[in-house]
């Protein structure tokens, strides 16, 4: 079957088996290997991309269901020459060790900063109406991205730094 996707602003038509995940389409068909396959079961977050602007696990998306949708991957938010504010902050704060989870962490954090600026609540928000970007909030909102090297404190520092830059 055929599916058309806009990935990082560019339209692609891919031919695929109905079983194809969006993750495999990105990595194997479009050769966008910045998005990582960790668990392939929605548990680790390494495959996080933005789907029509919202962060999702691309391993739990069937490509067939996303005809006409827009996808943004880590390749779409910055380049080695022009890093995004979050990418810069992860380098600055050393927000990784092995780096395998980093693209997913950065895609997830990119969406998270927007969500909190739009007032989206979390389970740990004291007040569902006015969430604030505290360390506790960041830990809760990033819980879908595992880091087996456990660089979490530095990841949160990097996100806090990027958030200050953008304000």
């Amino acid at each position, binding site marked *: 079957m055929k599916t058309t996707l806009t990935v990082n602003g560019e339209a692609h038509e891919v031919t695929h088996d109905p079983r194809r995940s969006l993750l495999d389409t990105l990595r194997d068909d479009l050769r966008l290997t910045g998005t990582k396959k960790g668990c392939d079961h929605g548990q680790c977050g390494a495959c996080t991309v933005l789907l029509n602007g919202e962060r999702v696990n691309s391993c739990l998306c069937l490509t067939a*269901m996303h005809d006409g949708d827009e996808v943004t991957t880590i390749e779409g938010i910055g380049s080695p020459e022009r890093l995004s504010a979050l990418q810069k902050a992860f380098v600055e704060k050393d927000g990784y060790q092995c780096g395998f989870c980093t693209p997913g962490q950065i895609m997830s954090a990119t969406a998270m900063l927007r969500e909190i600026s739009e007032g989206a609540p979390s389970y740990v928000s004291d007040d569902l109406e006015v969430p604030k970007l505290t360390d506790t909030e960041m830990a*809760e909102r990033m819980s879908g991205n595992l880091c087996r090297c456990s660089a979490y404190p530095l990841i949160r520092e990097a996100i806090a730094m990027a958030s200050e830059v953008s304000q």
Partner: protein
Amino acid sequence: MRPFDYSRADSAKDVAGAQIIAGGTNLLDLMKIQVMTPEKLVDITRLSELTGISAEGDRLRIGALVTNSALAADARVRAGWPLLSRAILAGASVQIRNKATTGGNLLQRTRCPYFYDTSQVCNKRNPGEGCAAQGGTGRMLALYGTSEHCLAAHPSDMATAMAALQAEVEVMRASGDTVRIPLRDFYRGPGDRPDIETVLEDGDLITAVILPAPRAGARQVYRKVRDRASYAFALVSVAASVEMEGDTITRAQLAYGSIAPHPWKNHEVAEMLQGQTASDALFHRAAEALTREEAPHPDTEYKRPLLRRTLIAALRQATGLGDTAGTDTVRTPA
């Protein structure tokens, strides 16, 4: 994953004879490990009549395709049914909640390890072959409402809050008729057919969930106990909406999660609280009444004291006897 035929539904009538997919966050996982092997998959995500949240008088109608994230963040839900926002936000991760739908969340499958392990027998996977959890291990198994054929618990936080809020499930039948089923009647106990989890029949489609009018002034709590601070299923949870006049509890709506094959309710407990002065002694009596029955499996016996303490803590929160962090008061538009 086993091969399947994929089609996109153009109308609600296209779902008969096929496995419905919407968010796919649970189904695709189960298909990858071949616990579920549908031959036909019908994608309902383009059915626009299943989208959106709308007021129905004082009630709220939530389309079946509304995502968990959109529902939890909806301004009307945060104000009128904050218990539902908290419960949804207590479940899964943001990535999952951005895809998971209202209808799909109600129909998510158990996380019983034997259901997931195709090398073990499971009556929910293959009716009649046996239950490996009997005599096996499983601290996530259910405490109440089980049968000798199945010990699995329903893991949904959202459904537990909806049970406390007395929601209804709107279903379109294959005939085209629409019915509304109280959530308490929507799930079936396991009996001798644990593979049949709800009253839905082939060709039925969940179209919406209806919340009754908000209870102005009610204090609401979703208290979830789990093995890690976030992104884990509940061991036990308590959804509470409590109304008071002075120190007297005038109404308590309660439901309990991850302890039964479906959101659990206990009317005796709710009635014990009504009309009584809030006190620790009262809450202890309610907790004892809730957990009188022994666990069906030694590995879940720990859930009895845990559930008692969680109920007491939730009631202390809701009535102001304890720390009130994470407690929300229902507001209604002026």
